[in-house]
């Protein structure tokens, strides 16, 4: 990777002030309101170092979640929650096809999971207070001064991401480092990723990069590589047009705890409400009939 020419202007170790548009130096992208940003997480590059988890916790000052061992794998984080906004999944496989191969080493697939910042976003569509909103960077964020902890976003999320902090009484999830974006900084997880498994950038650019990466992997013989969450791909189903955080996977989505065909929860409002009101009206008509027969 080449060094950005602007980086040569800042040779000192201690900077007197923040570098303007620092993301240009670290991620090769300028952050401007009105454009769409996201993450491309290439799981073939993930080494499971959890730098993203730590960087996220540090920058966002998130408390520890679970100080015990899960006992199932090297994954002692377990999953995303109100206080864990990046989670590295450790999928241990004997062989890709699941068959035992005597003497063979285990095969690891690692994947740094995060809020998908869906478009449409079921959490945002479920939020009755408007605390969840779409930012000028086309990401989805909870406004902590508005959330009243109704908790409806929690079951609405098709990926089990957003969580409710029962002590503070508000919902929390990845903000795609909204504060850093406003300051021209690359999100903490992407900046800390040592292998560039997590790439931050403009969505259209990331889509191009991801498609090129799949082509390159296929050419190298890794024909199982595919994208999850790009328009028309698995993950972008059921009226979820695309995911702002999308992934390059090499096995079925479910092994990473991702649904292969998630759907937009709000699409079920009208069928349910419509059928229900028709039933209620029909029962009311029946009640009229019963009362009228008595009145006669």
């Amino acid at each position: 990777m080449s060094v950005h020419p602007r980086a040569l202007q800042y040779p000192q170790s201690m900077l007197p002030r923040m570098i303007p548009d620092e993301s240009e130096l670290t991620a090769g992208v300028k952050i401007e309101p009105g454009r769409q940003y996201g993450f491309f997480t290439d799981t073939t590059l993930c080494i499971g170092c959890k730098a993203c988890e730590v960087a996220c916790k540090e920058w966002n000052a998130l408390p520890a979640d679970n100080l015990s061992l899960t006992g199932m794998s090297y994954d002692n984080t377990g999953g995303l929650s109100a206080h864990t906004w990046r989670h590295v999944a450790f999928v241990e496989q004997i062989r890709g096809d699941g068959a035992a191969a005597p003497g063979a080493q285990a095969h690891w697939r690692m994947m740094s999971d995060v809020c998908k910042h869906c478009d449409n976003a079921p959490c945002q569509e479920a939020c009755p207070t408007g605390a969840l909103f779409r930012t000028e960077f086309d990401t989805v964020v909870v406004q902590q001064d508005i959330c009243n902890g109704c908790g409806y976003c929690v079951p609405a999320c098709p990926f089990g991401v957003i969580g409710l902090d029962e002590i503070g009484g508000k919902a929390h999830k990845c903000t795609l480092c909204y504060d850093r974006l406003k300051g021209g900084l690359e999100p903490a997880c992407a900046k800390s990723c040592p292998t560039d498994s997590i790439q931050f950038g403009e969505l259209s650019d990331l889509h191009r990069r991801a498609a090129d990466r799949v082509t390159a992997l296929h050419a190298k013989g890794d024909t199982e590589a595919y994208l999850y969450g790009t328009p028309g791909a698995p993950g972008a189903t059921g009226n979820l047009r695309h995911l702002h955080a999308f992934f390059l996977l090499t096995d079925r989505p479910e092994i990473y705890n991702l649904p292969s065909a998630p759907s937009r929860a709000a699409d079920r409002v009208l069928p349910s409400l419509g059928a229900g009101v028709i039933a209620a009206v029909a029962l009311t008509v029946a009640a009229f009939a019963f009362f009228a027969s008595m009145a006669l």
Partner: protein
Amino acid sequence: MSAMTKSPVDSIPTYYGRPAVRPSLYGWTVALYIFIGGVAAAAQILATAADLLSAANSAGVLLAARAIALAGAVAGGILLIIDLHTKQRFFNMLRIFRPTSPMSIGTYVLMTFGFWSLAALIVQLIGLHILTLIFACIASLAAWFMTVYPAALLSATSTPLWAAAPRLLAVRFAGSAFASGAATLCIIAIALGAPIARPLIDFAILALVVELIASFAAQRMYQASGVAGPLSERPWGLLHLVAQIGGGLLPIALYIADAVTSPNPGALSIVASVLVLGGSLLMREVMFLAGNESARRPHDYLTFTRTAEGAA
């Protein structure tokens, strides 16, 4: 093996069996609200229908029904605020109206229903009959939504058991709300010796039949989508069956037995009505808690996303 291959659902892997979606934090308070809200809404609708046809022959039943409607709306609002995790911000619900959120729809439905139920009760107490009818009709329009919007609220989530049958869940909730509303008014009518008890019982039987048919149809859909687990295993499966039999089939039998054995509805019908109320409450509680359980089962959710049509 291509990653895109659609495999049989029983071979869907999970991530060490860890949940793929989060269960709601809703518990018995929200289920109790839905029961109370359903009773209140159906009582208002039935009283208004009887009032419009001048069929009540008992101002006492109408007054009680309107009082129940108001009390249910107030109690429901309190239960919902209790369930918030930042209660002092309950008024933030009124910042916006979001039609994609049944929670937002329900906020305004409950407020409309409560306000016009209060107005109807006041003018009835004053003795303005025409105005009472107008206000009660407006409250009844909101009450239609009151009986069923909680089903839309549950369906518009990623909890497999709630999302698998959006239409049938709403029909169930409508049937259950109307049956329990009729049962409540039936108890009052029998106590006051009002003749409206007879058509209320006939109507309650119809509403119970609607609910039972919808519940059996829904269970078939749950089987087909692979999410029937929590409703076919203990404890929720057993309690669900208790609600269906004890709160559905048994009261129907008791109502009929009472009609056959005595000219006027009596003790048997009161017992049946109490069973209907108990069954209706139990059904909501079971659907809530079994739903939370289904969200904890990754296989149910991952299967559901493959088998359901998504928007259902």
